[in-house]
C-alpha cells in the first residue's frame, strides 16, 4: 500500500464509523439531528479524501475535471434547492427522487467500468458479477423510484396500474435479466450484454412499481432505498473502494429492517404489497358518496363550531386526508383558537397517519404545533375517555373499531380508541372506505357525526364558526 492509499483508507474508515454512529444516534428524537450531522461529517471527509487522491494521482484530464465539477455543481445546486423548497407534505416523493438518482449513479459506475475494459476484453466473474448486480439493482431502483415519485406527487396515477399479460411480461423480463447475467459472466465483454441488463432492469423497475397502490408507496420507497444501498455496495466492489461497500451494505441492511417496521406499522406485509395488494389508499378521492351503506348523522360546520366552543377537552385525530389536502395550517389555527380560550387540545397521532410513518409529526411540527400536544398511540388512547369532542380529520382505518375483532383485513391493527370519547366528529370527503377497503362502524355510532368536506375547506369553515361562538 502506498502512503496515499494508507492515509485515504484510514480516512474512509473514519467516515464509515461516522455513518454507523450517525444511524445509531438517529434512533432517538433527542440525538437524531446530531446523528445526521455526524453522518454528513463522514461524507465530507470521504469527499475531501477522494478529491485529494485524484489530484495527487493526476490521472484525470482537463475535460474530466470540467465534466466532474460541472456535474457536481449542477447536482448540488439542484439537490439543495429542491430540499430547501419542498413543502413538508411532499417530502416522501423527494426522498424517492433522491433515491432514484442514487441508484442511477451506482448503475453508471458499473456500466462505466465494464465498458472501459473495451469490447472483447477478457474478464473474471469476480469483476463481472458485481458489475451485473450493480447495474441491475441500480437500474431497478432508478426507474422504480421515479415511478414511486410520480405516484406520490400525482403525476402518475396512484391507482394500481396493471394490464393484460403483465404477468407474462414480468416473466419474460426476468428471463431476459437472467440471460444478461449469463452473457456477462462469459469470458469477454460486449457492450450489448450490459445494455440488455440495463434496459431489462429499467423495465423491471417500472413493472414492479406500477401495480402498487399509492398508499403503499412509502414502504416501496423504503425498500428501493435499501436496494440502492446494495447497488452502491456492489459499485464499491467494482471500483474496489471500501467506503462504498461499508456505507452501501449499512443502508441495505438498515433499510431492510426499516421497511419491515414500516410495513408492520401499516399492518401490511412486504410480500403483499409487492404482489399488488388489495387497496389503493386513494379510493377516498372517488365520488363514492352515493353508496352510503349505513345511517349516519350529518352535521354542519356551524354545529361543530358550537360543540368545540363548549368543550373542555378536544382531541384532534389527523389522517391521510389531512396530509393530502395540506390542511395542517388550518388545523393548527383551529387548535390555537381553542387553546386561547383555555380549552385543552391534543393531537392523537397514529404511527402511520399521514403519507408515511412519522410523517404527521413532521407536518404538524412544520406548522408549530407544540411537541407536548402530539400524543402517540399509547399515550393518546387512555385520554379518549375524558375527551369531549374527538375531531377525526381525513382518517379512517386507524380509527376503525373492527380492528379489535377478528376475521377482517385490519384485524389486530393498533387503532386509536376514538369511539370511547363523548362525541366524535368525522371530517371526510365521502363515505368511501379507507385503503384497507373495510367499512368503518365508527361512522354509524350514536355519538358520531359526519361532516362531508375536503379537510382544508371544512376546517376553514369550522374555524370561522368556532370563532363566532367564542367571541
Amino acid at each position: 500500500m502506498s502512503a496515499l492509499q494508507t492515509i485515504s483508507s484510514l480516512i474512509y474508515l473514519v467516515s464509515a464509523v461516522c455513518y454507523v454512529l450517525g444511524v445509531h444516534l438517529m434512533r432517538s428524537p433527542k440525538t437524531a439531528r446530531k446523528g445526521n450531522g455526524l453522518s454528513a461529517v463522514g461524507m465530507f471527509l470521504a469527499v475531501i479524501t477522494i478529491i485529494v487522491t485524484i489530484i495527487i494521482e493526476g490521472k484525470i484530464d482537463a475535460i474530466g475535471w470540467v465534466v466532474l465539477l460541472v456535474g457536481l455543481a449542477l447536482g448540488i445546486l439542484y439537490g439543495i434547492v429542491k430540499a430547501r423548497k419542498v413543502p413538508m407534505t411532499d417530502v416522501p416523493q423527494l426522498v424517492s427522487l433522491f433515491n432514484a438518482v442514487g441508484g442511477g449513479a451506482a448503475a453508471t459506475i458499473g456500466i462505466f467500468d465494464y465498458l472501459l475494459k473495451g469490447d472483447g476484453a477478457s474478464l473474471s466473474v469476480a469483476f463481472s458479477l458485481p458489475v451485473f448486480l450493480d447495474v441491475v439493482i441500480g437500474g431497478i431502483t432508478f426507474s422504480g423510484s421515479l415511478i414511486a415519485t410520480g405516484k406520490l406527487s400525482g403525476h402518475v396515477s396512484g391507482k394500481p396500474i396493471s394490464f393484460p399479460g403483465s404477468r407474462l411480461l414480468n416473466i419474460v423480463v426476468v428471463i431476459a435479466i437472467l440471460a444478461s447475467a449469463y452473457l456477462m459472466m462469459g469470458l469477454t465483454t460486449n457492450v450489448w450484454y450490459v445494455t440488455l441488463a440495463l434496459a431489462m432492469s429499467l423495465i423491471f423497475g417500472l413493472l414492479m412499481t406500477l401495480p402498487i397502490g399509492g398508499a403503499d408507496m412509502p414502504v416501496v420507497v423504503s425498500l428501493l432505498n435499501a436496494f440502492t444501498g446494495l447497488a452502491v455496495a456492489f459499485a464499491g466492489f467494482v471500483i474496489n473502494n471500501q467506503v462504498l461497500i461499508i456505507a452501501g451494505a449499512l443502508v441495505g441492511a438498515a433499510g431492510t429492517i426499516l421497511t419491515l417496521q414500516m410495513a408492520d406499522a401499516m399492518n401490511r406485509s412486504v410480500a403483499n404489497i409487492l404482489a399488488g395488494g388489495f387497496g389503493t389508499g386513494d379510493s377516498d378521492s372517488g365520488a363514492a358518496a352515493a353508496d352510503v351503506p349505513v345511517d349516519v348523522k350529518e352535521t354542519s360546520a356551524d354545529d361543530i363550531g358550537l360543540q368545540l366552543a363548549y368543550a373542555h377537552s378536544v382531541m384532534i385525530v389527523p389522517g391521510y386526508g389531512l396530509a393530502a389536502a395540506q390542511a395542517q395550517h388550518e388545523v393548527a389555527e383551529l387548535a390555537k383558537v381553542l387553546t386561547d380560550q383555555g380549552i385543552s387540545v391534543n393531537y392523537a397521532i397514529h404511527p402511520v397517519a399521514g403519507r408515511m410513518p412519522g410523517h404527521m409529526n413532521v407536518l404538524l411540527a412544520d406548522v408549530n404545533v407544540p411537541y407536548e400536544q402530539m400524543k402517540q398511540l399509547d399515550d393518546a388512547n387512555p385520554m379518549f375517555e375524558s375527551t369531549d369532542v374527538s375531531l377525526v380529520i381525513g382518517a379512517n382505518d386507524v380509527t376503525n373499531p373492527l380492528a379489535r375483532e377478528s376475521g377482517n383485513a385490519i384485524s389486530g391493527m393498533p387503532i386509536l380508541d376514538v369511539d370511547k370519547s363523548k362525541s366524535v366528529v368525522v371530517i371526510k370527503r365521502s363515505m368511501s372506505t379507507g385503503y384497507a377497503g373495510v367499512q368503518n362502524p365508527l361512522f354509524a355510532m350514536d355519538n358520531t357525526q359526519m361532516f362531508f368536506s375536503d379537510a382544508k375547506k371544512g376546517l376553514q369553515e369550522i374555524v370561522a364558526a368556532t370563532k363566532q361562538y367564542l367571541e
Partner: protein
Amino acid sequence: MSQELFTNLAIFVLSLLVGFEVMSKIPATLQTPMMSGANAIHGVVVVGAFVIAAEANSALFYVLAFLGAFFAAVNVAGGYTVTDRMLGMFDRKPAAKKGEAEQK
C-alpha cells in the same frame, strides 16, 4: 478467490450485520427521517463518481462521468439537506414561537 475480493466480501457481510444490528426498533415518529437519512448515506456513491471521472478518456465516458457526478451530487446534497430540515422541526420548540410571531 483473490485476497482483495475476499477482503471486500468480508467487509460487505460484516457491514450488513452492523446495519441489521444498529437498526433496532425505531419509533414511528422517526421512521421517515431515518429513511431519508439512510438515503443520504448511500450518496457516498459520489466518491465513485470521482473515481470514474478520473478515468474518462472519450466522449462516451465523459457523458457517463457527468451523469454519475450529477446523480450522486443530487443524492448526497439533497439527502442531507432535507433530512436536516425534517429533524430540525423536532427541536425548535422555543424558537418556533418566535418564528410564528414574526410571520404575523
